[in-house]
């Protein structure tokens, strides 16, 4: 047996040597490979010993050892690559969703009036920064550090494996998952930023962002993606029509109600004074950035890329996501042409985004015609509900509520149409529970801020524009 073992050791050394010289990482290979080596040796020996103890012939033992080693070789490279692919998916998806922060910023600076553009830019830089900080400080563990079926996770900062530690037990690196999830919470806060634009006080908004990104979003997120009670119930929300978009929408709705409409927006007799945005090209750019980022948002929500099935599903998600957005845009365009005789481009922008939000709850199972249908209804929703909100004197500057809240509800409710494992009732329960929690909690936060530091700038500052009043820097200064 020793000779077999020696041969084995020699073989493993060969394998080891090959790996060292062939695996082109710079620093860590040695550690990886020495681990690999001893593992292979142990496995081979164990298998062979086990076979002998069971009365196998030496040949059978050799064969058992080799089988075990073959399988571990397969595992090592198959598994290594799968984990790299999974992590890479989070990294690529992560930078794409991070990029959506720029998309929201361009969309929103384009849709606010010239005098509030710098403020909108500042708010969105700040909220993205805060989202990262808060999601590290407590958010991630509130969301993912809980028990199955639970309501809330734990309160502690995130911890990433040391440099070079190279653990990826979950099938991907923890930090890549954190990064990807962090970009989602930032998107939620961006939604609120647009709705309450042009009159919210900077520091009040930022205080709200702290609570939203550290606590509110992670709590409802825990219910589903953190493995909490909703996920046990069978609720289904693939990439966050409800968990991200509606949550942002509910928080925005509470904000809009407590802050009130911009001065002059609503006159007597239901008269509405439109306040056209400062730059259509920037709003358009924002939409394209968001559209691009959504491939990360939905695609990487597959959460794995290490098998052909996974990557094929991601491809399917890309196609469906793109086509739902297209259907949303085209539907909105046709509807505004029919209703208003002119094609308000801001409605088309919102239509595309509503298509994207609608497909987000289930971008995988629908066949293309269903994806088109889901996106098209999303586009129709914005065309019909934007004026409706004005009737209710809910002054949502960029259309965040129709796009993210209403299309988000639609997208979540329609999941059972194409996904057999889900039920309309459960979807409704999830939407209601998350909606109720977020709306009530947000209202409380807005209320507290209102009675303490105040959430609205003075009438004079609002007339002057927030850029002059709170920033001191005009967005487009003149002579």
């Amino acid at each position, binding site marked *: 047996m020793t000779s077999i073992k020696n041969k084995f050791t020699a073989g493993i050394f060969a394998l080891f040597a090959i790996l060292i010289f062939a695996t082109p990482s710079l620093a860590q290979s040695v550690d990886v490979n020495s681990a690999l080596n001893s593992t292979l040796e142990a496995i081979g020996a164990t298998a062979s010993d086990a076979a002998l103890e069971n009365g196998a012939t030496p040949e059978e033992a050799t064969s058992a050892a080799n089988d075990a080693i073959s399988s571990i070789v397969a595992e090592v490279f198959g598994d290594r690559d799968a984990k790299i692919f999974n992590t890479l998916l989070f990294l690529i998806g992560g930078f794409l969703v991070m990029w959506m922060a720029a998309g929201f910023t361009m969309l929103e600076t384009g849709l606010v009036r010239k005098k509030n553009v710098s403020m909108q830019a500042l708010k969105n830089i700040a909220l993205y920064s805060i989202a990262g900080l808060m999601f590290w400080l407590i958010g991630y563990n509130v969301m993912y550090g809980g028990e199955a079926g639970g309501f809330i996770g734990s309160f502690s900062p995130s911890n990433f494996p040391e440099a070079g530690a190279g653990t990826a037990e979950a099938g991907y690196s923890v930090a890549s998952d954190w990064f990807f999830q962090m970009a989602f919470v930032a998107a939620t806060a961006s939604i609120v930023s647009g709705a309450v634009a042009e009159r919210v006080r900077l520091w009040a908004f930022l205080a709200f962002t702290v609570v939203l990104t550290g606590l509110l979003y992670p709590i409802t997120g825990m219910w589903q993606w953190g493995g909490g009670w909703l996920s046990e119930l069978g609720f289904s929300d693939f990439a966050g029509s409800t968990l991200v978009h509606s949550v942002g929408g509910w928080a925005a709705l509470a904000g809009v109600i407590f802050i009130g409409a911009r001065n002059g927006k609503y006159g007597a007799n239901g008269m509405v004074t*439109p306040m056209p945005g400062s730059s259509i090209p920037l709003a358009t750019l924002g939409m394209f950035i968001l559209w691009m980022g959504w491939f990360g948002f939905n695609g990487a929500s597959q959460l794995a890329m290490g098998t052909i099935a996974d990557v094929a599903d991601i491809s399917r998600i890309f196609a469906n996501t793109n086509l739902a957005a297209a259907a949303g845009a085209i539907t909105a365009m046709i509807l505004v042409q029919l209703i*208003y005789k*002119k094609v*308000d481009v801001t*409605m088309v922008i919102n239509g595309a985004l509503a298509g994207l939000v609608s497909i987000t709850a289930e971008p995988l199972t629908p066949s293309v015609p269903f994806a088109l249908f889901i996106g098209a209804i999303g586009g129709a929703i914005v*065309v019909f509900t*934007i*004026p409706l909100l*004005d009737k209710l004197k809910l002054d949502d500057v960029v259309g965040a509520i129709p796009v993210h809240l209403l299309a988000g509800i639609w997208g979540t409710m329609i999941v059972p149409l194409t996904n057999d494992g889900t039920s309309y009732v459960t979807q409704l329960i999830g939407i209601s529970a998350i909606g109720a929690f977020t709306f009530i909690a947000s209202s409380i936060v807005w209320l507290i801020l209102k009675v303490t530091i105040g959430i609205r700038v003075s009438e004079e500052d609002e007339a002057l524009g927030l850029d002059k009043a709170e920033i001191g820097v005009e967005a487009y200064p003149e002579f």
Partner: protein
Amino acid sequence: MKLVMAIIKPSRLENVREALSASDVHGMTVSEVKGYGRQKGHTEIYRGAEYAVNFIPKLKLEIAVKADQADNIVSIIRNSAESGKIGDGKIFVFDLEQVTRIRTGETGDTAL
């Protein structure tokens, strides 16, 4: 001296400028303005809400001329700015008491 101030359609500027340079006009100052008159604004839709666009973009020309040139200039502008459609604009003439050329300090007609 007189100051002729004309409100015209933006698209007629080139026409007017060429017509004037053929005459004895030495200078002109132009600014972007908005206005309404007989040509009322129209309603527009933004995100589903109707609103009145009350003001229409126009250009304002200011041309200082010798007193006796004023009528001629007015008619040149009138002819070159006319499109025959509503909103063509107006020409106003004011008395201009004094002119100084900053560069030289010349005043009066020679400063024009």
